[in-house]
């Protein structure tokens, strides 16, 4: 064991002992591994982010009672949300029955009537010029800030206001806070894709960590060969090399941790796709952090030992190495075949309804397919560049260099190809899956209409609301409509709307109308919603009252009616509509109220003005503006995840670029002397720069080919798993491939100063 430690220590000594060159090499290795470690630490924090959010959501979940318990102070609460220029503001109105009422987490007390607590983001918005129009909607006195315990994320726009009008009838009766976590659950296809996406994005990071440990590989080979010469056995040289790699890995862990901690400080300022995260939440899960701390050094040691296998065979590795051994293909295709076989076993396992797939097999299959890329690329590059001949001197220099040693170049671009393949597969699967949900048409855009639905209203409140709206800027007409639900037979619900002829005309195309008329609104697309047989005059129905079982309500007879068409196919009101005199024996005190507001579409911020107009009604009024139609939630989820995956692919690609730059700089540094000799013997620096570009570009083009082929194949296999038609996302492929190509040019440009220094007179200096 002592010998083990002394060999490892010698390795560390060798890694540190070369003066400036050694420190530069260690810094580059640390940077290369560190970037990967920082990303891994970020990813390992996601579980904490989700669990902390879940815990807070559970902590603020209200425990409600049907009726107020006697002798105990409770809280009446009502949820409300409003939109402001595309952003959603949510909150609750509350009234405490006494000092013992439960206090909502995140606030210091229950706000009194006319008081409000605001989240920091909402307070900032209201204080900014951007929130000027919103201030009218929150006239309450601000008495405090909702802290982290009451929020999901730092950018949440949330309020908590007092309202003395709330009662047991109008609001929920809250007896305590802190309930069970409600997991809505994602679509099975989405869950699977997220799992696959995480693998596809994190696997390249591990590839980069592996590549970074091979920086200055040829120098190390020479150093270890010298050790072999003076009698170090193969095992000892491996241990010494392991010591060297360990130092690089630990430096990488330190750099990565520092990078992560530095970036973490700014996380609350970042809002990506509407998602923001608290600093405290972005904490790596301890088991995953330990796994990273173990995995990175192990990976570094294994990679370096595998890389130096030829040095172990040849103690004088630099003396005789006439021709490198030609790479063989057979074992390189094994992971590819295993991956294809694994995914093939899951064909059709994930459908829209059920989820019969084994995530382990799928993730394993994807990992194998991605692993096959860095294994196949060295073979592909060697065979491809082996056939290249002729060309300009810069081309010739690059090609000859690649023919002599293509392994490093292939490994460098291997990471890029892995990102590309993962990105292509995920984007294609997402694009294909999205077509099935996006095929449904979006609601029609109508900028001249705002609907307001009201709760717990009285005729006075409705009149007050109508008056407020009529006074508002940009409002042209206001049509209040009351409605009730009825039960015709078991599970056959219908609705009856009550309004004046003027109001009814806003909803349906009426041939004529006078008080005492009734209409059934139907169209070819929506014949009569919910009914097996058409509604007929004289039929007896039961009016459904909210507070009682549906079947116990009063009976009512369907009056004579005329069939008419809606004013709008998409947003029209369907079903039975009657004029006020026919509603005399209906229980209107139980009726819902909706108000159709026709507005001037040319007026800027018209929806905000209408929302402000009904703001005094607070939780009693919900507004829907048809000029800001939003895609259904599932479509939005697909889009968000697809964007997140594209963003993830781009971030990983940038990471690949950073690694590529580190490796390119190291390559120049390592080949300083031959480059200086070339420059000294008259080769123009431009030709050397171009040869550097070709040296990066040729393997990259091959890597793009391999990445697209494996990524396409993976997309095909995954689409068969999720039973979706093949839709290759050519735009996504183009963006990712273009970024990768651009990256090579940028990396070459950034390595030019280093080349300039290397080709100076100092480059010719030898030991």
């Amino acid at each position: 064991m002592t010998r083990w430690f002394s060999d490892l220590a010698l390795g560390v000594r060798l890694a540190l002992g070369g003066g400036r060159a050694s420190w530069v090499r260690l810094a580059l290795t640390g940077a290369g591994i560190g970037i990967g470690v920082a990303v891994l630490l970020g990813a390992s924090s996601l579980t904490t982010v989700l669990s902390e959010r879940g815990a807070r959501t559970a902590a603020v979940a209200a425990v409600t009672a049907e009726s107020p318990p006697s002798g105990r102070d409770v809280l009446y609460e009502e949820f409300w949300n409003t939109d402001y220029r595309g952003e959603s503001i949510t909150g609750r109105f509350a009234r405490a029955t006494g000092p013992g009422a439960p206090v909502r987490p995140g606030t210091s007390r229950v706000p009194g009537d006319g008081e409000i607590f605001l989240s920091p983001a909402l307070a900032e918005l209201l204080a900014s010029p951007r929130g000027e129009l919103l201030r009218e909607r929150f006239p309450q006195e601000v008495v405090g800030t909702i802290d982290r315990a009451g929020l999901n994320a730092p950018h949440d726009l949330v309020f908590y206001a007092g309202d003395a009008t709330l009662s047991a009838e109008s609001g929920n009766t809250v007896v305590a806070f802190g309930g069970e976590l409600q997991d809505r659950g994602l679509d099975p296809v989405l869950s699977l894709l997220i799992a696959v996406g995480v693998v596809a994005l994190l696997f390249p990071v591990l590839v980069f960590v592996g590549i970074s440990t091979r920086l200055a590989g040829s120098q190390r080979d020479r150093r270890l060969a010298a050790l072999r010469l003076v009698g170090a056995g193969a095992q000892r040289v491996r241990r010494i090399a392991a010591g060297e790699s360990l130092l690089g890995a630990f430096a990488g862990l330190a750099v990565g941790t520092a990078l992560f901690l530095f970036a973490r400080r700014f996380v609350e300022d970042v809002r990506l796709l509407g998602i923001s995260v608290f600093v405290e939440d972005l904490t790596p899960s301890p088991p995953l952090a330990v796994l990273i701390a173990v995995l990175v050094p192990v990976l570094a040691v294994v990679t370096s030992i595998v890389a130096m296998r030829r040095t172990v065979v040849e103690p004088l590795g630099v003396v005789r190495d006439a021709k490198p051994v030609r790479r063989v293909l057979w074992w390189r295709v094994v992971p590819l075949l295993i991956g294809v076989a694994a995914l093939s076993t899951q064909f059709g396992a994930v459908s829209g309804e059920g989820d019969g797939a084994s995530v382990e097999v799928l993730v394993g299959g994807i990992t194998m397919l991605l692993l096959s890329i860095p294994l196949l690329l060295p073979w592909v590059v060697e065979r491809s560049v082996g056939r290249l001949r002729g060309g300009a001197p810069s081309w010739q220099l690059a090609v000859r260099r690649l023919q002599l040693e293509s392994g490093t170049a292939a490994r460098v671009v291997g990471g890029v190809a892995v990102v590309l393949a993962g990105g292509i597969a995920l984007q294609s699967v997402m694009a294909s899956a999205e077509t099935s949900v996006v095929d449904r048409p979006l609601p029609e855009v109508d900028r001249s209409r705002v609907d307001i639905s009201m709760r717990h209203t009285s005729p006075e409140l409705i009149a007050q609301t109508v008056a407020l709206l009529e006074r508002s800027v940009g409002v042209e007409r206001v049509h209040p409509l009351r409605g009730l639900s009825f039960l015709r037979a078991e599970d056959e619900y219908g609705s009856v709307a009550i309004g004046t002829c003027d109001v009814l005309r806003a909803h349906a195309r009426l041939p004529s109308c006078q008080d005492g008329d009734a209409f059934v609104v139907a169209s070819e697309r929506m014949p009569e919603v919910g009914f097996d047989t058409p509604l007929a005059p004289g039929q007896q129905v039961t009016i459904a009252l909210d507070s009682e079982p549906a079947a116990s309500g009063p009976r009512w007879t369907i009056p004579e009616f005329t069939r008419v068409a809606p004013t709008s196919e998409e947003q029209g009101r369907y079903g039975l509509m009657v004029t006020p005199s026919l509603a005399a024996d209906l229980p209107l005190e139980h009726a819902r109220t909706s108000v159709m507001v026709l507005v001037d579409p040319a007026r800027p911020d018209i929806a905000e003005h209408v929302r402000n107009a009904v703001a005094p009604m607070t939780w009693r009024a919900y507004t829907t503006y048809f000029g800001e139609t939003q895609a259904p939630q599932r479509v939005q989820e697909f889009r968000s995840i697809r964007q997140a995956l594209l963003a993830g692919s781009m971030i990983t690609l940038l990471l690949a670029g950073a690694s590529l730059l580190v490796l390119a700089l190291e390559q120049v540094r390592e080949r300083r002397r031959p480059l200086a000799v070339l420059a000294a013997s008259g080769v123009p620096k431009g030709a050397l720069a171009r040869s550097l570009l070709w040296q990066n570009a040729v393997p990259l083009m091959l890597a793009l080919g391999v990445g697209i082929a494996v990524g396409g194949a993976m997309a095909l296999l995954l689409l068969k798993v999720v039973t979706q038609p093949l839709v290759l996302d050519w735009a996504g492929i183009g963006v990712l491939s273009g970024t990768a190509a651009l990256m090579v040019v940028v990396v070459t440009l950034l390595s030019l100063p280093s080349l300039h220094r290397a080709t100076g007179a100092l480059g010719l200096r030898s030991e």
Partner: protein
Amino acid sequence: MNPLLEAVDLRKSFGPTPALDGAGLRVHAGEVVAVMGPSGSGKSTLLHCLAGILQPDSGTVRYRDVELSALGDGPRSELRRTDFGFVFQFGQLVPELSCLENVALPLRLGSVKRREAESRAREWLERLEVADVADKRPGETSGGQGQRVAVARALVTGPRVVFADEPTGALDSLNGERVMQLLVTAAKESNAAVVLVTHEARVAAYSDREVVVRDGKSREMEPAR
């Protein structure tokens, strides 16, 4: 007297190119043998086979009646550490270690304590007149100083055979002469044999006898002096 090291009918090819084609050599304890020949004649390959670094395709190399090709990697590594020493044209010193650490390295690999290893290494540096560069790295020394450090490292373990492949090839004549004087003197004092690969007659003049390698075949010459 049995030779210390004996190679018989060695053949070795690199791909289609033959490097050795029936070469042989005998080295006795304490003698200096120069292996001469033009570039590409196979003399370095012969040296690498003699030292057990390269395995010949056929033929035998016996050291103290032990067939080297029969030994595994571990025993051959140990042999290089304990019985053999090496001096090459350049590149054999570990650039990350100081000159003192380089010389002490074979001892430390053989589990000699650091203090003792460095003390013995310092003695050898003094004998080879380079004690002043003990704390410098090889990159900070001149070519001649570096070669003397390499000679010190080759001799520090008290080897029975020192293999020297063009040890003065990268030095000017003055420095070359001095390195050869020190190498041969120190080896003689330690009763170590020296196998000296060179294409320079003035370097070969330090040997007891010469062997010429041409086209992979070896031929014994008359003693040089």
